[in-house]
């Protein structure tokens, strides 16, 4: 896949009188996974919306595969697949129809074989491909949404709390899939509360506090891949700080 990845430069986003992002800067190169951690209200999801161009940026710049959503919003959205925290597809459509529908919205056409292949990749059983989503578990919905993201074949993937509510096996499967995607050159920014999951798959972990990147850790080539002690301490401090606030 390849591409120029995602680059957030000194982003400031205001909501009302409050700065939700206060100079956030981070880079996700192609073929890397960036896990963005932080307590509730730290501004993680806002960073994703700013990258998508769904929120106006007060200052700073977001570059998605080299394109600025403020100036080329459609081109940016064509370069991003976005998986929200709660995967909400259409209940009255089957998995296949949902995928078809959203691909059509994106102006993309995929063959039946390509769709089957994406379903196989996310391990969605063939028997349920034509079942309505109303009968699906959260894990199955997640898989459908991921299959859609795969089929979009975008250079950048944004994930908002992707493993919330998944059982351990589904989480493991999801991480495997992320690593497969990463190997194709996709730049992945994953907003999460799941520190263990982040340690498992991320190349870089960032910790957000009050709209800013407070700390950042890069994976090492040795085991453990991260400075676990430092990570836990910072993460716990951030959560306590957030709770007490």
């Amino acid at each position, binding site marked *: 896949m390849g591409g120029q990845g995602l680059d957030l430069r000194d982003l400031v986003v205001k909501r009302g009188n409050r700065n939700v992002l206060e100079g956030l800067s981070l880079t996700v190169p192609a073929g890397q996974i960036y896990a963005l951690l932080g307590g509730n209200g730290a501004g993680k999801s806002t960073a994703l*919306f700013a990258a*998508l161009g*769904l929120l106006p940026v007060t200052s700073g710049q977001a570059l998605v595969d080299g394109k600025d959503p403020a100036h080329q919003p*459609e*081109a940016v*959205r*064509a370069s*991003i697949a*976005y998986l*929200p925290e*709660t995967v*909400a*597809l*259409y209940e*009255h*459509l089957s998995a296949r129809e949902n995928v078809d*529908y*959203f691909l*059509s*919205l*994106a*102006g993309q056409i995929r063959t039946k074989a390509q769709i089957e292949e994406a379903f196989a990749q996310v391990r969605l059983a063939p028997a349920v491909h034509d079942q309505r989503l109303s009968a699906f578990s959260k894990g199955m919905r997640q898989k459908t949404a991921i299959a859609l993201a795969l089929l979009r074949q975008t250079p950048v993937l944004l994930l908002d709390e992707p493993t919330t509510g998944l059982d351990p096996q589904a989480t493991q499967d999801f991480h495997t899939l992320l690593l497969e995607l990463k190997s194709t050159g996709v730049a992945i920014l994953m907003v999460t509360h799941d520190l263990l999951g982040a340690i498992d798959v991320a190349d870089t972990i960032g910790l957000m506090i009050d709209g800013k990147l407070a700390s950042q850790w890069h994976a090492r080539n040795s085991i453990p891949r991260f400075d676990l002690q430092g990570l836990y301490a910072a993460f716990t401090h951030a959560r306590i700080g957030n709770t007490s606030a």
Partner: protein
Amino acid sequence: MKHFWREVGFLLRQRASVWAVTLLAGLALLSVGLGLHDVAKQKAAISQVIDLQKQDSAAIKVFATEAGDAAYYRFHPTWNPPAPLAFAALGQRDIAPSIMRIRALALEGQIHENEAQNPELALPGRFDFAFVLIYLAPLVLIVLFYDLWSGEREAGRLASLEAMPLARSHLWFPRILARFGVVSAALIPVFWIGALISGAGLRDTIAFTGLIVALLGFWTLFAAWIAKGRGGSPTNAAVLATVWFAITLIAPAGANLVINATTPIPDGAAILRENREAVHDAWDLDRAATLQRFYKFHPELASSPPMQRPFEWKWYFAFQHLGDQQVESLSTFYRTGIAKRDARAGLVALALPPLAIQRAFHRIANTDLAAQSAYQDRIRAYHTQLRTYYYPYLFLAKPFTPADFDATPEFSDRLAE
């Protein structure tokens, strides 16, 4: 177009939408069917009355050897044939008569006699295509639009949808257009079928179709504007329903009350009563004086010899004529008042698009107040023709033969056009 058709297909996968649109199409079909039936009934009644009146006239001809007998006993049919598009917007046709049999007697009483007949029947209004379009179609559009954005937001899909490239052109615009298209498709072909059956002209059919599109377009834009706001689905539904209620029911009814209160007119029954009283009182008035008053209006008949017998037809028809003169100012006041009320309603309609479109429907279908007034004008013109035809026989002793009976002017619905 593929996005439009995709959204149409998507909409038709939702059971509630299918029910709403099917119900609307069914009601439109029913309204067109009933409208065509009503119009056919009116046409049949008109031709039946014309035929029966011929038989009636033939029977009168046997004994009506004097012009006075013919003028007194003979009814003359007048009619206001429904325009081809009347089936779609019956308008005034349900309360105003489409047939009136008149005699050469005082006219105003005959015209206003109809207003005393079962006015309660007019209260519920008619279930016609215009009713379905003005009152029901907006409700279906509201059902299809109120949660267009909020429903996606509440289901957690909005961000995913907005994150799609070209969401506006590939998603929201086709979605809006699909809803507009589906509701239009439930109504317009049904109307076209009715127009085809009734033999409506192409120009009127296109104009009427344009009005349908304009009304649906108005509600589509308004509902989409409300739906695009930040309100939740229940709030949007409540706002849209309230606005619908306000501008289709409350505001027109309120405006009607204000217009009626500020533009008083005599009621038709008062004109009828005064006309009758003037005629009845004339029996007790000095006959020569009555005739002299009449001759002021018809000096060409003043050479008529004085009355020789206690009853003569010329005196009788003279005071019938004077009866109309007596209520002329009241009748003019009534007619100008009605026209003024109608003009004021037209001004109100400038601020109420549904009302404006409803009025335009009735204009095209020739079922509005103007059409009804024009019919009354044609009756008055015809009645004048009748009177002036009989007067030489009544006043100047011109012999009245069976050929003259047959040559009596007949009503034409194009008389005043």
